[in-house]
Each structure stands twice: as structure tokens, then as C-alpha cells.
């Protein structure tokens, strides 16, 4: 009996050590994405891999990838922001109102960026000033922002001129915006002091504070960078759907969390966090949705598959690596 328990324990330790392997951890999400793509291509007789379908998958990925790439800074700092969707929705609503008032796309984009950063700053300030965990602050913010949006919209929807949205879609500006933001985030995250400091805070808050890296300061920076993502994401939402209603980006928050976790971001943040996890995760979600529906899987079953996947990944990533004491 003892032997069996010891063997099981040994196997578990071995599995954990494989999972903890730096390269496996990095390559696994990419490998999952590639395997899914191959499976769906074979199962759909190549229809999955057509140029048009790949563009469809990319189109479906952009909004989540943009917002989630920004959110990865917050996740890397060891925090979870569950108001990303509500912030994006309210930012898009405000930007739409600004457009209606000014009829200027540039002013609309500027207002989206400003308001996205502003909302994130408010979240960060509430957390740092009152010493409340980010998750609790963002729960409150999520409800508050949704209500503010409802008050602004009063049950109505805001529709943009068809010609404007069509022109923006034709210009491929969505790809340019995402590309620029992704590169910006990648450089900041992996090649600057800012990224290192944020990841250090995520690894061990106590340790970082004792070495002169203020968790509050870097949390604020993480929120500011993600605020830019919120503003750009809001603009992409407008380009994609051309209308803002009470239910706009209703599932964005869940999609962002799923993308970040699926892309291989440790849920505790820290040194193993990667900014591109959001892109890989968002693409995996789109590939999964697209491929399963192409194979004829019922849409309602698809919801269940997404939920299960999220559960499994959270479970797999819930083992915190052995580190110095942090929040105890």
C-alpha cells in the first residue's frame, strides 16, 4: 500500500517537474495551438486552413488579444482584474458618444485611450490607496461601470455610420493597431526594467518591496499600460461591430481570462509570465470555436468545452512554484 502511494507520489512529482520545465512551459501553448490547427485541418478536409478562414480566425482574435495583452501586465504582477470587459465596454460607449458629438475619428480614438487609461488608473488607485486586493476592487468596479454604461445608453444603442465603419474595416487599421500595441507591450514586458519589476512583484511581493521595488508603484504602471489596451480594444470593438448596445463585449472579460490562462500565463504571475501568452491564448480560443463549429459540434456544447478547458488549465496551473514567502 505504502509502495503504491509512494509510486503515485513519485509519478506526480515527475509530472510536476516536467510541467515546471522552462521550455515545456513555453512551448506547450504553442504546441497545443499547432496540434488543434492540424486536427481541424484534417477533420475538415483542409477547409480550416484556407486563407479566408485564417483571416476570419485572426479577425475574431484581435479584440480579445489586444485587451488581454494589456491585462497580462496585471496578471504578471500577481493580480487578477475581472473588470477588463466592463472597462472596455464603458470606454467604447464614451468614445461612441464623443464621436456623435464631434464626428471626428481622431478625437474618438484619443478619448478612448484617455478614458481607458483613466478607468484603469481609478482601479489601481482604489486598490493601492485603500490596500484592497485588486480582485475585490475590480468586482465592485465591474458592477459600477456596467451600471454607468446602462445609464449612458438608457436602453438605446449607438450606431455608427455604415460608410465610416466599412472604410475603417477596409483599411485594416485593426491589424496595425494590434501589431503596434503588441510590439510595444512585448518590448516593455521582456526587455525593460518595467517588465522585470512587474514580474518580480508578481513573483514575490514582500521580497520586491524589501529590495526597493514598490509593488504599489509597479501595479499602477501595469494598470496604465493595460489601460492603453482597453482604449485600443474599445476602438477595435467599434470597428468590428459598428454599434454599441447594453450587451456589447458582454463576454470579453471571460474571454480575456481564458486567453491569458490558455496562452500559458501562470495564474500567480511572476517571472514566468509572458506578454505573448494572451495572443496565443486568444488564437487558441478562436481556433477552438471555429474548428469545433466547422466539425458540426453544437454551439451549446461548445460553451461547455470552453468552460471545462478553463477549469482544467486553472487546475493545472494552480500549483504555485516553490518560492520564498510572499503574501503570508
Amino acid at each position, binding site marked *: 500500500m505504502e509502495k503504491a502511494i509512494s509510486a503515485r507520489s513519485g509519478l506526480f512529482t515527475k509530472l510536476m517537474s516536467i510541467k515546471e520545465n522552462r521550455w515545456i512551459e513555453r512551448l506547450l501553448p504553442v504546441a497545443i495551438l499547432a496540434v488543434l490547427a492540424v486536427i481541424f485541418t484534417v477533420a475538415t478536409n483542409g477547409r480550416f486552413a484556407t486563407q479566408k478562414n485564417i483571416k476570419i480566425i485572426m479577425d*475574431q482574435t484581435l479584440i480579445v488579444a489586444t485587451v488581454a495583452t494589456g491585462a497580462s501586465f496585471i496578471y504578471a504582477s500577481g493580480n487578477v482584474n475581472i473588470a477588463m470587459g466592463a472597462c472596455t465596454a464603458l470606454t467604447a460607449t464614451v468614445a461612441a458618444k464623443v464621436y456623435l458629438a464631434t464626428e471626428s475619428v481622431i478625437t474618438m480614438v484619443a478619448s478612448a485611450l484617455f478614458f481607458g487609461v483613466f478607468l484603469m488608473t481609478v482601479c489601481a488607485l482604489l486598490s493601492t490607496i485603500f490596500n484592497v486586493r485588486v480582485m475585490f476592487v475590480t468586482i465592485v468596479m465591474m458592477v459600477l461601470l456596467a451600471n454607468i454604461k446602462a445609464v449612458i445608453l438608457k436602453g438605446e444603442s449607438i450606431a455608427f455610420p455604415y460608410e465610416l465603419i466599412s472604410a475603417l474595416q477596409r483599411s485594416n487599421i485593426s491589424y496595425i493597431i494590434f501589431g503596434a500595441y503588441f510590439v510595444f507591450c512585448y518590448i516593455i514586458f521582456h526587455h525593460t526594467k518595467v517588465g522585470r519589476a512587474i514580474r518580480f512583484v508578481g513573483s514575490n511581493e514582500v521580497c520586491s518591496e524589501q529590495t526597493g521595488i514598490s509593488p504599489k508603484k509597479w501595479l499602477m504602471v501595469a494598470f496604465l499600460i493595460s489601460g492603453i489596451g482597453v482604449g485600443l480594444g474599445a476602438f477595435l470593438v467599434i470597428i468590428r461591430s459598428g454599434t454599441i448596445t447594453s450587451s456589447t463585449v458582454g463576454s470579453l472579460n471571460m474571454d480575456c481570462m481564458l486567453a491569458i490562462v490558455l496562452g500559458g500565463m501562470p495564474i500567480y504571475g511572476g517571472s514566468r509570465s509572458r506578454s505573448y501568452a494572451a495572443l496565443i491564448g486568444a488564437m487558441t480560443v478562436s481556433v477552438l470555436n471555429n474548428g469545433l463549429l466547422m466539425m458540426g459540434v453544437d454551439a451549446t456544447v461548445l460553451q461547455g468545452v470552453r468552460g471545462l478547458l478553463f477549469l482544467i488549465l486553472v487546475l493545472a496551473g494552480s500549483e504555485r512554484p516553490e518560492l520564498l514567502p510572499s503574501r503570508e
Partner: protein
Amino acid sequence: MKKFSKILAILLIAVLMLNLAACGKKNEKTPDASNTASPSSTPVQNEVEQEPTLKPHKIAVAFASLSSADIMQKNYLENVVGPAFNTEFVFSEELSNAEEVISFLETAYASGCEGVMVFPTDGLDQVIAKADELGLYVVTNSADIVQSVKNLPHYVGNVSSGAKITAGIFSEVVMKLVSDGEKHNVIIVSGGAGMGSSQHYETTVSILQVLQSTYNLNYSSPIEEIARSTSPLEVDTGSDVKVYIYPGFPYGDSYVSGLSSVLQTGEYDTVICCFNAFSQFSVAIDEVEKAFGKNIRVVSLSSVDDTTASAFNTLDAFGNPSIDAVIVKPLCAMSAEMFVLLYNAIEGGVDQIRQTPGEATMFIMPMWYAYGADEYNALSNLDNSPETYAFKPEELKQFLIVYNPSVNYETIYTAWYTCTAQSLMNR
């Protein structure tokens, strides 16, 4: 212990996944023979020698909600229409905004769909433009043709109840309700009348006109202005008859309580809902009925579903049904027309079925109405019973160009426009 819990959790998830896989298999089962026009059991197959060979087609259906009425519609398309016409349907989950509809269209296209029925009405111009870009024929359920995209080649048209026709039906029902020789104080739940919904606006206007003519009211503002009110408004009627406009939708917590506070004044005895909202207010109405010992009559737009059936078959404190009359959207009959339009378009006859070639066309399927449970139960069979469906596959054949090459706009428009519940029940 911690590791054991983890292993247990993994096992539970595996069991859940197996369950899901099993559910998936169940869904793949051939439909129930009792409500299926399967090729082996229908007259279609018996007359195979005269039948044209039907090419396989795939049509997507984008749902705004997944209520019991939508499930009935799904069953009708999947189990009755689909097998009869060699057509596979791909159904969406609940799509709550334009972005989700666009994503669904893209995936539907990727899975080989050639046409799409769109029930959500947000951001329709972009939705239609996306369908056109993907080469999917599209029919929507909107009350108005989307002008900015009406010339796109794949925008076939809309199937709707028609704002003015629905308003006319409301007039008839409300007239019957208020013409009993007594004075009634009325709350009009006007929904989006002031927010751009043409159907809610026309309905509110027509109700105000009926009340004006019945009680000789002298409104202090033009009826159009009153109907467009975006905040609750006690209308100055120049008489002791009270009329209250309650606009908006039940998105926030304060919506039902707002109406409840008006009802609790005890002054109103009639509630008319321009959209499917009565179930939201049923508890508030019941409380007020009990508190004031008076019957409150309710008329509402609705659909053939469990909620409406339950409202008719549940008696209030006075022994009356919870709802007195309904104006229902016949979803199965409506989706039959949408299918006919898409099928013909896919088969190459898109301009043959349009009123004006090259331009999206409006098709009208008038709403049905019922007073009392008996009328409603008879009417509901037309939309949810395989034996008495308003449009069975045999009847749909005459509207499809593969069976009837001479079919055109007039043929289809007239058939559905004249399709009232009363005419179907007589049939």
C-alpha cells in the same frame, strides 16, 4: 490529501467531458419519427419519381435568445424542414450583440453555410455587410429594411410582422378591451417607442389613438410626442381617464420596481405591453391585485411558449387568467418564410423573389392574437405541433423554385401576408 483532491477533481472533469461527449452523440441521433418529415416516411419520398433531386444545402440561424419559443423554432427547422429539403441547419448560441453575430456568421461561412437567418437586430448594417462579404444570403427579422445596405446582392430582405400591421392588431385587441362601457385607466409599457423602435412607436401611437377615440380624450401634446417619451409620463388627457406611458426595457433593477410603484397607486386597472414584458411584471401585478382587491387586465406582445401558456392557465386572485389577451409572433411560420427566401436565393432565384430586382424586400407575416386560454391553446398548436404546423413541408414546396419555377415575390408575399391564425384554424 491536497493531491488526492486534485486527482479527484481531474477525474470529475473527465467524467463531465465523457457526459458531454455522450450528449453530443445524442444530438446526432436522427430526429423523432413522430415529428419528422424524414425522407423514408414522408410523401416526399413516396413521390420520388416526380420529385426534383435536391442539392444539399446548409443554412445558419443566428438566435437573439434561446427561449422555449426559439427551441420550438429550432426543432421545426431541424426536424421538419431540414430533412424534407435536404438542408442542414447550423444554430447559434444566444447572440447578444453585433460582434457575436458577426463572429457566428464568419464561423457559419467557414463551416459551409450558404445562407443565414438573423434574429438579433443590433448593428444590422454591419451584420448584413459581413454576410454579403462572405457570400452568405441573409434574411433578417427586423421591422425595417436596412437602407444603407439594401442594394447588397446577398441581402434578400426581411420577414417581419410589420410595424403598422402589428399596431393595427393592437388597436383591435385594445378596442375590444376598453369598449365595455366602463372607464379604464391604462399603463402603456412602450419599450423602445422613443428610442427608434418603429414597431413599439407605431403600437404606442395606435393605443393612444384608440383610447382617445373611445373616451374622447383631449391630449395636451401631440400623440406622436407622447409616444416618443423616453421617461415615464402621466399623460394629460383632459379627462378623469388616466394614461401612463412607461418606456424602456428591463435591463436594470429599477425597471420592474418603477412600474410597480405606479401600479401601487391603485389607480390603474389595465396594462398594455408593446413588447414581451408581461412576465417581468406578473408578480408586481398580482401583489397589487391582492392589495387593492381589483382585477388588473393585461395585454402583451408575446410568442408561443411555455411562459405565455402558463400565464393563460394560471388564475389570479379573481379567477381570471394572469394575462387577458396576447399578440403573438408566430416564430415557426415566420422561419418557414425565411427558409423559403433563403432556399430560393441559394438556388439562384434571388431576384425572382424580390419585389424590385437588386434590392432587399420586406415580407410581412402578421402577428396572431388570442383572447383567453382556449383561443391561445388552439392558436399555439399552429406553431408548435407537428400535426398542425402552419406550414408543413408539403405546403412549402409550392414556394420553392426547384418545385415551382414560376414562384415569385407576389406568390410568397401573399401566402404569408394572408396567413392569419383564424384562416389556418379554419383550414
